[in-house]
């Protein structure tokens, strides 16, 4: 800005300087030239008159160095010259002014010096006696005048330069200052040059456009963050260089990272070989999958390549927490192994007995013992298979018809059916309480009460008792089975509802349970939308409370 203003100021100054120089020089030069010529002519007239009257005496007496006077005889011989010796001068007959004067009475001519820096003007006049008096004066030409004026011109130019520099600086500052102080955030609130208002208007428009777009972007980002933030699965987006572009909360939790991992390599989150291999695979084949264990939990990582215009733009990593699944898988495997084991044990006992009988190794009096054993083991098998079937029915969640069930009545019936088994173990069983009716599948409720009561009888001590109590509490039905049995140590209490879990592994045979009773209870209660509470003290007994909603 300053530079341009400076340049134009200098140009203007130079142009003005040049123009005024030309004009002034031209005018003044011609004016002074005319004045000088007239003066010269007058002087010539005067000198001529004087010479006519006084002759060469006048010329001799004249004392002037500015004007050169030459008296030339008719034949061109110089008679007198006030600036040079007349004798040494050449014949002037050929000179233009002389010839003109000799012929016409007056003559004039102009001659330039060799360097063109000086010009000499000659005026000649014929005197009455035929001689010619010539007057001449040297003066500067226009060129030499200009050259001699060069230093003042340069001085002026220098002054002009300095002045224009100062001016340019000032002007540009005055122009730019308001521009610098423009409030571009609120372009329309500026009070400045009118010429700027279209620009400011435009800026304002673009401001609004940018604001709107930013708003939109923010909104989208927020939507994205919100959506991914509430995802249960972890999501990490990587760019083509495997840098984290975006990571949601679940993924941060899984990798134990925070926001600072964004724009860092994915390797800083998880550097295991499996993951880098899977990442490479995803980039090559489009999909990769791997498992990692972090902080005691198992995660499945699904990696997918993101393509854009045929190029790899990055990778999306989905992180699934599969701890529960893995646990479920493990317990399913354990269950299968347990079932096989539980089924095999009675069968082996049956086979052993049958083999002995087959080979005739059993004495007739022992025969009953062996066949009895076969029957018991077979019935154990049947009970076990029954339990497994019931459990798998519960697992599959087959719809069961709901009906009104009178719990107290059911409890009394159950207690009655178990009386004999209880009596064999010298255990007293009784059911009491208030009448509560619930709407539920009778079979499920029956399973719950039967299995709880059955367990209470089986794991009791001789002379002990089992109390089944039914009552209504806080709007739901409460079944409480209290025994005076062996109790469950605390460390086992959380696991007794698992399939085939036994507190005392050696005790299972004698008690005759299948190890599935409590598991069935748990499933049935879950199906009915109820809850179970178990309180037990080893050696004192166990109380199981089941709460069931009155209507499902």
């Amino acid at each position, binding site marked *: 800005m300053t530079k341009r203003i400076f340049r134009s100021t200098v140009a203007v100054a130079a142009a003005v300087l040049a123009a005024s120089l030309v004009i002034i020089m031209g005018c003044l030069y011609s004016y002074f030239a005319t004045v000088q010529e007239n003066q010269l002519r007058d002087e010539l007239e005067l000198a001529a008159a004087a010479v006519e009257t006084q002759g060469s005496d006048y010329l001799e007496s004249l004392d002037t160095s500015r004007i050169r006077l030459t008296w030339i005889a008719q034949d061109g011989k110089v008679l007198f010259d006030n600036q040079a010796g007349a004798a040494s001068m050449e014949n002037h007959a050929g000179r233009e002014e002389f010839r003109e004067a000799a012929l016409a009475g007056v003559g004039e001519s102009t001659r330039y010096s060799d360097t063109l820096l000086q010009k000499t003007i000659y005026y000649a006049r014929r005197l009455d006696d035929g001689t010619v008096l010539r007057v001449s004066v040297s003066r500067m030409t226009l060129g030499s005048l200009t050259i001699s004026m060069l230093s003042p011109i340069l001085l002026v130019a220098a002054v002009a330069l300095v002045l224009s520099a100062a001016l340019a600086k000032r002007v540009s500052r005055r122009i730019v200052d308001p521009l610098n102080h423009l409030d571009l955030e609120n372009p329309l609130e500026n009070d400045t040059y009118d010429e700027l208002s279209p620009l400011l208007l435009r800026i304002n428009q673009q401001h609004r456009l940018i604001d709107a777009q930013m708003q939109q972007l923010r909104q989208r980002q927020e939507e994205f963050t919100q959506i991914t933030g509430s995802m249960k699965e972890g999501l990490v987006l990587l760019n083509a*260089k*495997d*840098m984290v572009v975006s990571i949601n909360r679940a993924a941060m939790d899984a990798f134990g990272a925070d926001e600072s991992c964004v724009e860092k*390599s994915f*390797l*800083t989150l998880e*550097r*295991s*070989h499996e993951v*880098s291999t899977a990442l490479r695979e995803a980039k090559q084949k489009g999909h990769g999958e791997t498992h990692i264990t972090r902080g005691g939990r198992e995660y499945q990582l699904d990696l997918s390549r993101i393509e854009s215009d045929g190029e790899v733009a990055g990778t999306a990593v989905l992180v699934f927490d599969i701890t529960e699944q893995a646990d479920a898988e493990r317990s399913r495997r354990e269950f299968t192994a347990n079932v096989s084991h539980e089924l095999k044990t009675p069968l082996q006992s049956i086979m052993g007995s049958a083999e002995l009988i087959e080979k005739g190794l059993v004495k007739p009096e022992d025969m009953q013992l062996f066949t009895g054993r076969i029957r018991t083991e077979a019935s154990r098998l049947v009970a076990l298979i029954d339990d497994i079937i019931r459990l798998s029915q519960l697992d599959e969640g087959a719809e069961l018809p709901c009906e009104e069930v009178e719990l107290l009545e059911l409890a009394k019936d159950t207690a009655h059916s178990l009386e004999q088994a209880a009596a064999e173990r010298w255990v007293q069983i009784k059911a009491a309480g208030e009448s509560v009716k619930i709407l539920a599948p009778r079979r499920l409720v029956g399973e719950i009460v039967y299995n709880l009561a059955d367990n209470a009888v089986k794991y009791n001590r001789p002379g002990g008792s089992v109390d089944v109590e039914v009552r209504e509490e806080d709007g739901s039905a409460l079944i409480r089975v209290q025994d005076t049995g062996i109790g469950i140590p605390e460390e086992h209490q959380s696991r007794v509802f698992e399939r085939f879990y036994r507190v005392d592994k050696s005790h299972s045979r004698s008690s005759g349970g299948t190890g599935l009773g409590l598991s069935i209870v748990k499933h049935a209660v879950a199906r009915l939308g109820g809850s179970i509470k178990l309180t037990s003290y080893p050696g004192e007994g166990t109380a199981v409370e089941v709460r069931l909603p009155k209507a499902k």
Partner: protein
Amino acid sequence: MRSRFDQQLQELNSKLIEMGALCEESIALAAKALLGGDGELASRVVPLSREINNMEREIESLCLKLLLQQQPVAGDLRLISAALRMITDMERIGDQAEDIAEMAPFMAGREDRELGRIGEMARAAIAMVTDSVTAFVDRDTSLAAEVIGRDDVVDGYFARIKQSLIEALVSKPQEGEYVLDVLMVAKYLERIGDHATNIASWVVYSVTGVHGEEKA
């Protein structure tokens, strides 16, 4: 120019992490193979070690390229020179993991006090390697300093194992070969601890400009 440089530095960083991860894995695998006497597991260490060697060459040429083409200064230069030193240590860890894995068949079916101690020592050494790599990833100088301090723990294990091996040699001279094998493994683990310490000190150097061991 600078952005390309940054990219290359990032690449170097990623490759170093990857190489560190490979070291962690190979030593963990080797230890598992050794303690379980599992030859199949041990055979998987060899390709890992080869991969580590390849990574070393790759990183080395990347570092030299960076040094020649970009003429880095200050922190960048420190990172690159630290990287050049770290890969040597990492490569040695890979070699030692391979050596340990080679011992696995001779330990099959053994379950004695010395091998149990070797297990503990291996865990300590692996943790040192893992933590030194983590220190590099997170540029965590305090973790690096902690790793440097833990070198004494591994050295202590070595001394104790050596002592009990001497006793074993006296009481059961026929077990001589086995005893020497265990001693070798202990020595390898002790070396791995040293290399992890070196890595940790290079981490400190690349971050602060002061070599880890100088400060310690």
